[in-house]
């Protein structure tokens, strides 16, 4: 069976362009002239500043007075020996895994439920998608209140004998030591994951719903003819067909979770014992409060690299898919 194309990107790229060496016509020059300003600006303000940050991260600029002398990898060495940064890496890893898993599972589930031709579908679509319209700062403030140990949901939980500390809990589940830190799942992170999932699931629902709608009815009918149950239909046929969407969702959620700052900053801050600290918050405090510009730049570069680990293979694979 032919692979069914469902992502919009693949649809548009379906007609393979024949590459030939041609002379540049006036049209090409015109196109280049129109593109040139944005290309120049992007090179300057995106790649230029990335290079600048990289340069700062190798300098000794760790006070209000700029010091451009070359420090080598000193700032990076310091970071990876720092308790706080090790805790950040653990938190980011735990947060990313839990967050992406929850968004994908919930997104698929809700999308499949929404796809059952129910009445008032657009109402539910709006309800699920609405949190996306809020900023992470608003989400953080609201959930901070909901999870506050002395207010919010705890007012209902306390009479039931549940005394939850949520984001103030300093327990780390799993607990084995790695470097200076206790490695495991910080309980407080779960509260933050809940808030982040609440905000981003709507996006995954929308993506999966579009994907489900793009699957031709013939596929389902054929499967039913062959005697597949509804569960088998989804498990063996529909979900595998949605895999390209899952890849897109993972890429988008991964870059959000790896550079997350505003949600955590508004909701918990670094947290006691840095149980909810992430590199974004650390970078902000190091650079703008401690005036350790070179250390801050080093954190920023590590964040960039961690995102690149996800994005670059995706870019390469989508380029291959396109040509």
């Amino acid at each position, binding site marked *: 069976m032919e692979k069914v194309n469902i992502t919009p990107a693949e649809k548009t790229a379906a007609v393979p362009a024949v590459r030939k060496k041609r002379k540049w016509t006036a049209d090409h020059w*015109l196109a280049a002239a129109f593109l040139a300003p944005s290309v120049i600006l992007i090179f300057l303000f995106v790649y230029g500043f990335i290079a600048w940050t990289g340069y700062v991260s190798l300098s000794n600029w760790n006070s209000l007075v700029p010091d451009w002398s070359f420090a080598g990898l000193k700032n990076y060495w310091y970071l990876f020996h720092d308790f706080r940064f090790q805790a950040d890496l653990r938190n980011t890893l735990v947060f990313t895994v839990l967050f992406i898993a929850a968004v994908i599972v919930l997104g698929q589930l809700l999308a499949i439920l929404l796809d059952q031709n129910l009445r008032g579908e657009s109402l539910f679509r709006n309800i699920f998608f609405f949190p996306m319209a809020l900023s992470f700062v608003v989400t953080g403030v609201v959930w901070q209140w909901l999870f506050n140990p002395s207010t919010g949901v705890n007012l209902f939980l306390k009479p039931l004998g549940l005394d939850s500390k949520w984001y103030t809990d300093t327990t780390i589940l799993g607990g084995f030591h790695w470097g200076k830190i206790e490695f495991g799942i910080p309980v407080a992170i779960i509260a933050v994951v809940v808030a982040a999932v609440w905000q981003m699931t709507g996006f995954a629902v929308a993506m999966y719903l579009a994907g489900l709608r793009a699957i031709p009815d013939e596929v389902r009918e054929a499967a039913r003819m062959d005697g597949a149950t509804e569960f088998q239909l989804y498990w063996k046929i529909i979900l595998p067909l949605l895999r390209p969407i899952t890849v897109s969702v993972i890429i988008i959620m991964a870059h959000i979770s790896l550079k997350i700052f505003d949600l955590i900053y508004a909701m918990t801050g670094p947290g006691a014992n840095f149980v909810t600290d992430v590199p974004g918050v650390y970078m902000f405090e190091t650079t*703008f409060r401690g005036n350790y510009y070179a250390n801050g730049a080093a954190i920023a570069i590590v964040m960039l690299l961690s995102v690149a680990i996800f994005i670059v293979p995706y870019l390469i694979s989508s380029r291959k898919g396109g040509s």
Partner: protein
Amino acid sequence: MRKKASAWLALALGIGMALSGCSSSNSSSDNAKQGSQKAGEKLEIFSWWTGAGEEDGLKALIKLFQEKYPDIEVENAAVAGGAGTNAKAVLASRMQGNDPPSTFQVHGGAELNEGWVAAGKMEPLNDLYEKEGWMDKFPKALIDMVSKDGNIYSVPVNIHRGNVLWYNKKLFADNGLQPPKTFDEFFQVADKLKAKGITPLALGDKEPWAATHLFENVLLGTLGTENYKKLWTGELSFNDPQVKQAVETFKKMLNYINEDHSSRNWQDAAQLVAEGKAAMYVMGDWVKGYFVNDLKLKVNEDFGYVPVPNTEGKFMVITDTFGLPKGVKNPDDVKKFLAVLGSVEGQDAFNPLKGSIPARIDADPSKYDEYGKQTMQDFKTAELAPSLAHGSAAPEGFVTKVNQAVNIFVTQKDVKTFIDTLASAATELKK
């Protein structure tokens, strides 16, 4: 063909418009510059005074200034955030980008001297001090806090006391307790309260500086003023046994705090004392402004105050000052504002509302409440000690590292790691 030509034309037009756009914006900014030389640039006052009492105080000060100089336009550029944590970030990026506000709030001491003055970003104000005759109106120790290498760099507007133990009068009376004067008494009182199911000590370290504030008070109480000051000049090592003793006391105190401390900021923690859920609270005297202005409590009726145990006769001083950054367009207007800020009139307009006491020694005590009068008296006689948590004792970078170490210590309670971290961070101080 015609299509192509029109596209080229569009491009040419676009470039032309972009160019003319640039040039017109240039000329308009030139105009603005010329206009400002006549009408005066806006006077931008940068601070983190957005809370109830402090905002009222700032507005009273601005009102006084505008009565004197109605021609000068004032912009209140305050950035919210406890202890200026957010404002300092905004300020740092503006100063680095050579876009300084006309004048900005900065704590006297290392934050000013080792920060902006060392970076060459401040203008000296010696001539202003001489012109206004301020040299004997501010205490010498205070002028030293805003001076570096013989030059004075800012004007103090207020004094806050950092070593105050606030307590709930009713809880103390009901349980027949006296406010503690020593750490031993503190732990006796705390044990009695704990036995009754009352949280003895409130803490709100969602922003870690609040825990650092408690720690620096224990340091001052254990080491005494002289040795406490020596910590910040590198003359006394953090490996000293006295520091260890202070850390042990601090650790013991942490057994008596509210469980949800890491979800509370300093106001939320003060609220525990106001509501009678906690008995004592170590915090600066901005708490008084919060109790009186926001919670409508009465001094010495609803809440009482004593110096933090072992710190009687000592004064943990926190002073907000304003200076003149290099490169501002209207230095004369800024000096006019600083002159009002440093005047008796200005200090007495600002401080009663903010809940602090005036930095001048000749201000009018009758304008201040019971707490203010007593603190003004204490300020004249006590030994002054700079606050670490509020940037007076050591540079911001060191304070950030101490905050991190304290944040970890409050959970892990590992004395050795804590002292090692402080000692290794302190190697930066000697530079």
